[in-house]
């Protein structure tokens, strides 16, 4: 029995089976539910770490199941896959702890945690997908299992938000399906291959290839919230805070960005894509999204909506990085998958804390909140400064590599975008920090709850502190051997160029 062929399958099961068991649990079996959830999390983490070490030593982990007569379902743990899987499983652990605290005493928790685990199953599946059809399957699964989380509150407003979400994502999925089948009819394979697998397609099919590229990017662009396909994201803010945190940091939005990385580097191959003239327009589109998202964020008073538009903007850094053809920019883009993840999840955790503890939803209500909740706001500050790109926080590393990469690839205009966007980031984050730390505290908070002797319940407080530390650590220790940055350099060497 060869274990190497089973481990990727086990990772999928380690979140899928707990999900099924959690669905079957009665609402009041809190202890058992938490236990199952944490067992799933830790088994997933252990397997991912195990494969990390294995891949470093040159092992191959691959599971194959027959799906269609000539197409397999492939789960493969390459370096890029592991990067995304590690991010998902670590953030899943923190979000689970946070969600347990956040949903204390609210109804339908079995349903919530069941679908939450299924979201992770789908995300881990997306990361380990070894070909486009497997990717498509998990990507669509993610679309569906995130839906009950978005409409979790069961209000009319939530239903409408869910409807918008489905409208966009199902449409995107359809484009994706068309692109995938079309590609398959041209190449006869869908296997992700370092540097692409379309070399054998003849010149007479170039029009088809261009169309396929557009279809695939548009399909993934919906989830990655590329302008003009971003409309669902700010509306999905109706979901509970842990869901927003998860959606923005790893699951839904990142799956789209990750798909774009896969398409450019392992379906088309970046040089071929550049040759077809496809990367430059994508870079421009990403740049437009970066600026647009930031400008929109400036005008939001609702904290979560401002963060949502900030996500629109930040995720496009990843796309910008991979669309500027050059190894250094690519490193900047791909490492931003991780960096944006930890920073944005910190911000959403903090926003959830403010809402749960003090009933604060709007930025105008945040005066002096730094004195009432110093630890939460410290974490928030680290996340916000990281987003702006202040060293030594992780966001700085991403922007540094993006800038260097743009210069290397002779795309100086990107520098202007980066500067402009950083100014805008500062424009919408610094006023929040100023209010929170320097303005006087009001007499009464909108809706204050007593959550224990600390500034808020520990379950809500510890996750953002950890993610803030991660954001700081990833920046400070970027040059150390096991940092995300070093791992992305390894990916770039092995798979991209």
């Amino acid at each position, binding site marked *: 029995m060869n274990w190497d062929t089973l481990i990727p399958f086990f990772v999928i099961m380690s979140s899928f089976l707990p999900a099924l068991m959690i669905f079957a649990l009665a609402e009041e079996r809190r202890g058992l539910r938490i236990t199952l959830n944490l067992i799933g999390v830790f088994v997933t983490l252990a397997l991912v770490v195990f494969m990390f070490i294995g891949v470093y030593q040159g092992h191959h982990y691959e599971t194959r199941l027959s*799906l269609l*007569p000539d197409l397999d379902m492939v789960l493969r743990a390459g370096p890029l896959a592991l990067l995304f899987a590690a991010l998902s499983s670590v953030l899943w652990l923190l979000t689970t702890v946070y969600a347990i605290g956040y949903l204390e005493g609210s109804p339908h928790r079995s349903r919530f945690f069941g679908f939450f685990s299924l979201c992770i199953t789908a995300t881990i599946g997306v990361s380990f997908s070894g070909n486009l059809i497997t990717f498509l399957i998990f990507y669509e699964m993610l679309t*569906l299992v995130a839906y009950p989380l978005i409409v979790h509150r069961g209000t009319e407003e939530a239903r409408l938000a869910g409807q918008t979400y489905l409208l966009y994502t199902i449409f995107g999925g359809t484009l994706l*399906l068309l692109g995938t089948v079309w590609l*398959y*009819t041209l190449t006869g394979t869908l296997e992700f291959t370092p540097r692409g697998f379309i070399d054998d397609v003849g010149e007479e099919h170039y029009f088809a290839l261009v169309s396929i590229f557009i279809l695939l990017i548009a399909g993934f662009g919906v989830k990655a919230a590329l302008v003009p396909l971003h409309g669902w994201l700010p509306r999905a803010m109706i979901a509970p805070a842990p869901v927003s945190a998860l959606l923005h940091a790893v699951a839904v939005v990142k799956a789209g960005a990750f798909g774009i990385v896969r398409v450019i580097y392992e379906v088309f191959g970046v040089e071929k894509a550049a040759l077809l003239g496809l990367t430059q327009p994508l870079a421009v589109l990403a740049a437009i999204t970066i600026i647009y998202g930031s400008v929109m964020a400036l005008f939001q008073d609702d904290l979560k909506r401002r963060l949502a538009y900030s996500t629109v903007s930040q995720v496009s850094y990843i796309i910008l990085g991979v669309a500027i053809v050059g190894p250094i920019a690519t490193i900047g883009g791909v490492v931003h998958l991780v960096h944006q993840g930890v920073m944005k999840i910190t911000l959403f955790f903090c926003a959830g804390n403010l809402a749960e503890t003090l009933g604060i939803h709007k930025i105008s209500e945040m005066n002096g909140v730094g004195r009432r909740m110093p630890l939460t706001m410290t974490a928030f500050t680290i996340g916000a400064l990281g987003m702006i790109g202040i060293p030594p926080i992780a966001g700085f590393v991403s922007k540094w590599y993006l800038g260097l990469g743009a210069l290397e690839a002779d795309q100086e205009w990107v520098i202007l975008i980066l500067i402009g966007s950083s100014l805008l980031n500062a424009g919408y984050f610094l006023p929040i920090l100023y209010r929170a730390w320097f303005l006087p505290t009001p007499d009464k908070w909108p809706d204050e709850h007593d959550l224990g002797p600390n500034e808020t319940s520990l379950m809500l407080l510890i996750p953002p502190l950890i993610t803030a530390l991660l954001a700081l650590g990833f920046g400070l220790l970027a040059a150390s051997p096991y940092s995300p940055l070093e791992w992305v350099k390894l990916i770039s060497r092995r798979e991209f160029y």
Partner: protein
Amino acid sequence: MMQFVITLPWAILLILFPLTGAIISFLWPTQSNKVGLVTVSFVLISVTFLAFSIIEHGVYHHAIGGWGSPLGIDLYADGLSLLMLLMTALVGLGVSVYATGYFSAEQSPRFWPLWLFVIAALNALFLSADIFNYYVTLELIGLAAVSLTAFGKSREAYSAAMRYLLATLLGSLLYLLGVVLLYHGFGSVDIATLSERCESTPILWAALTLISAGLLLKTALFPLHFWLPSAHASAPAPVSAILSALIVKSSFYIFLRLWLTIFGPLSEGAVENMFGLLGAIAVLWGSFQALRQTRLKLLIAYSTVAQIGYLFLAFSLAMSGAVVAWNAVVYLAFTHALAKSAMFLVSGNILYFGGHDRIMNLDRIAQHLPITTTAFALAGVSIIGLPPSGGFIGKWFLLEAALVQEQWGFVAILLIGSLLTAAYIFKVVSHAFTQSSLPHDSRPIPAHMEWAALLLAFAAILLGFFSSSILSVVGIGYPFELNGVKP
């Protein structure tokens, strides 16, 4: 031992078991639920053994009483027949388990004889190999189905059943006329003989016209679908499931067989394109109508009209690249049977629970009936064709065939159809989470009614993972090789 068991005449038992069950349940009404369940279990077991035998020895062929064609009746089963038999057995089991809870003690003695009789007739149809037997079984199925439709006992149900009766009788009559013409023109009713003798003569084309008109009326292909929504929506839920999942498939199966063996090889393209076009309109029209409905059962019924359309798209796509398109057809037919029966059972649960099926007022069904809601969502995933599900595999094949042939019109139809389908499925799902302003009573549902729906829907999803092995079994006997050469 195993060898001996496999060699038993399972095909004959497939007809005898349900027939006997029907008689026993009629004579012994107090025990009809038990008799029914035992019978459908035996049917499933028989299909399994028949499958073993076919996989091992190839096509099954049996001349009843040793007479053989052209005088006697032949039983014939290749991979395609086997798949249809399996479909009947699986859906039959699910619906039967459900029916034990759904019908009251007074209703079930009337339900079981008819339903077991339908199973016997369906099995006989799928095992037949001559066009006159098809007629006989088709007529039996049609009459039993009409009686089942009238089960609702409301005025609405009677008028729907009456319309259904007229449609199905007219359909059989047209088909019979076509059969007579073929017999007159080519001197046989045996499909294999006909496929050798038939030539492109006016008689053949007149027969084709009559047979297509009759069968398409029974299959409810647009624009001959007018009887379907009211009949399928007003029948009791288990009956709706049977009608949508199995009975429309029976006439479709005959049509497919005759096309593959007799008409297809002689046709030159125009007829196929017409079917493709009608199929395309059915997909759009059915989905659009489904989207407009305010009642769940009507929505599901119109969805059947649309899904039937997909089956006919393949006729056009099969002209070049046959096997992929036909594989798509049988896969879609099979998964649609599972998913659609699950959906109708779900609608039955919702009616049973809340007393109505207005989509706007589903009132947090997701909380009250989580299993039922999950069943609907899973069945919906398969009907939309989202991965991983049997429906996805079928639509993948269709899309592949359309793209290879650069039939952009069909590509567009397939995609728009999927989007519309998604729209009406999620219209229902989204209302399952919200609260309704109207208060209403509810009564508890027996657990097995919920689980029957869920397992059927789950089977439709599961089919997404076994397409290679299932399609290799379907290929036994080469049902899709044109000219119908039987090895």
